[in-house]
């Protein structure tokens, strides 16, 4: 088969809303780990946010971390399971708001994990409040008149923050089109290879639709990513210490 559902995807229906990007990101994770032959080494550490619904969808053993603590928990687990591949799977709220301390310090300590951040520019799970990546003008339930940066604060672009850090890999992908999906997959795969080779901290952020809380149709959500979200959060590789491009 040219494209087959990865074996590590279960046939349990996911809890995600129609058009939710978490489902795509999860498939990429399943594909890449299978392609690398590391399926039997994966430990996922998920947040309590929408990413938590991944647990039912994949066959991987996993840990449910407190909100904002996936990266700390993953770092703790990895230090005990050095042969395993440990992936933290936070959302933007988790990694950049409540959990920013550990995002920064795990990067400083160059913890040998992958932080795979699903950035949907809102707190999805709790009903769509503003997050550190909510765009200027974007309406959320806690910025009902649209984010006004002078009132609600500026955006956090983690690429700019971790840019200068001595980590293994830092990249931002998106799932707004088939080609973007393939690029995002490449980023994730590279990061996993680096973890296999003990290169250190990798953070891959994926721009991901949350039609429910954006108040947009799934199709318009993809447009929103392309036209709006990427304007503030440009795609690409920001740190690459690996040399894993063939």
């Amino acid at each position, binding site marked *: 088969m040219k494209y087959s559902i990865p074996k590590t995807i279960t046939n349990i229906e996911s809890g995600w809303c129609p058009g939710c990007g978490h489902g795509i990101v999860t498939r990429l994770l399943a594909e890449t780990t299978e392609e690398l032959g590391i399926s039997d080494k994966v430990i996922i550490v998920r947040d309590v946010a929408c990413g938590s619904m991944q647990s039912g969808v994949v066959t991987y*053993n996993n*840990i449910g*971390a*407190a909100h904002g603590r996936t990266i700390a*928990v993953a770092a703790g*687990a990895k230090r*005990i399971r050095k042969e395993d591949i440990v992936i933290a799977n936070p959302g933007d709220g988790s990694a950049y708001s409540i959990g920013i*301390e550990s995002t920064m310090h795990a990067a400083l*300590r160059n913890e040998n994990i992958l932080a795979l951040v699903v950035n949907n520019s809102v707190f999805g799970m709790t009903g769509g409040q503003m997050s550190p990546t909510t765009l200027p003008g974007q309406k959320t339930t806690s910025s009902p008149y649209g984010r006004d940066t002078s009132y609600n604060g500026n955006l956090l672009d983690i690429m700019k923050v971790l840019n200068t850090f001595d980590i293994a890999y830092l990249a931002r992908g998106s799932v707004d089109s088939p080609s973007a999906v393939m690029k995002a997959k490449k980023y994730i795969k590279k990061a996993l290879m680096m973890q296999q080779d003990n290169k250190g901290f990798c953070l891959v952020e994926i721009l991901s639709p949350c039609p429910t809380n954006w108040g947009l149709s799934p199709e318009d959500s993809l447009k929103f990513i392309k036209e709006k979200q990427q304007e503030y959060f440009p795609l690409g590789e920001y740190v690459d210490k690996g040399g894993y491009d063939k």
Partner: protein
Amino acid sequence: MAKTLMKGNEALAESALRAGCRFFSGYPITPQTEILEYMSWRMREVGGEFVQTESEVAGINMLFGASAAGARALTSSSGPGFSLKQEGISYLCGTELPAVIVDVMRIGSALGNVFQGQGDYWQLTRGGGHGDYRTIVLAPASVQENADMAYEAFDLAEKYTHPVLIASDAAIGQMVEAVELKDFHDHDINKYDWVIKGRKEGEDKRIAENVYYAMGADEYKDFLLEKYKRIEDNEQKWESVNTEDAEVVLVSYGISSRVCKEAVKIARKKGIKLGLIRLKTLWPFPKKAFDALTSDIAGFLCVEMSILGQMVDDVKLATDNKFPVKCYSEFSNVPDPAIIIERAEKMLLENGGRK
């Protein structure tokens, strides 16, 4: 092993390593810091993982990950830092993960001060975090017990797949006594079937999350009641000193209980029938120690370094309120044997016999 002189905090740290602890994550705070400092070099020597985390919150959560992955894991703090760990402790309980968390108590709410205190009794015994849980709380009163209880705590934690707290205090942590350390014990991180690791073909899927999701809310209720009852039945620990014929019984733990022991000695010399129940577990509260007493008791005197007399209610509950229960509480001063005896004598006068 021969006895060596050690600081309480260091004895605790070394003993944890000997129990097989190979993961420590924590943040400095006086008077706990020596545990962290000791681990900063010694953990590397024994081949374990030491992390000075960005905060106490990160410390408890890294420990959560290490514990889920199967390690014997330790974190420690005091006062404000211990408060920051409460969410994580609640997570450990709900997820049913073993871990050992040390609170080297200091005095006061807010910043308070770095000196010995026992004001965290409620926080320790009633769960400072959200939701329905208890944790076993061990209360060492010497450097030797700091070592022994740290060793034993890991076994207990695994026996009940539950966090165990050690309620040490600044005095026990800072003082030096001779201590005999137990031998090194190897811990196998794959020992338990709940441990999270890469899932090999054919193995059952493992998830570390609220155990009630899998068992269902109704079953969980029974499960939890049964589990806590089992702990209450089996894990009460205490030391009774001269209680057989005591007319007034002191109730105390940790550093205060050592002063109480002195008071008992002095009182006995004076012919006053003083006894002491020293709690070695704060929870489960050693009700059995009280059940074993005769009824000719003029009352109980709680001696503790907490303004509000936090232990008093537990003594009343343990004795079904059948005896007078008083409290001699200190805040920044260490309890004074002379005052203890004075208060005990007063109780004797007031309640010559049974209430």
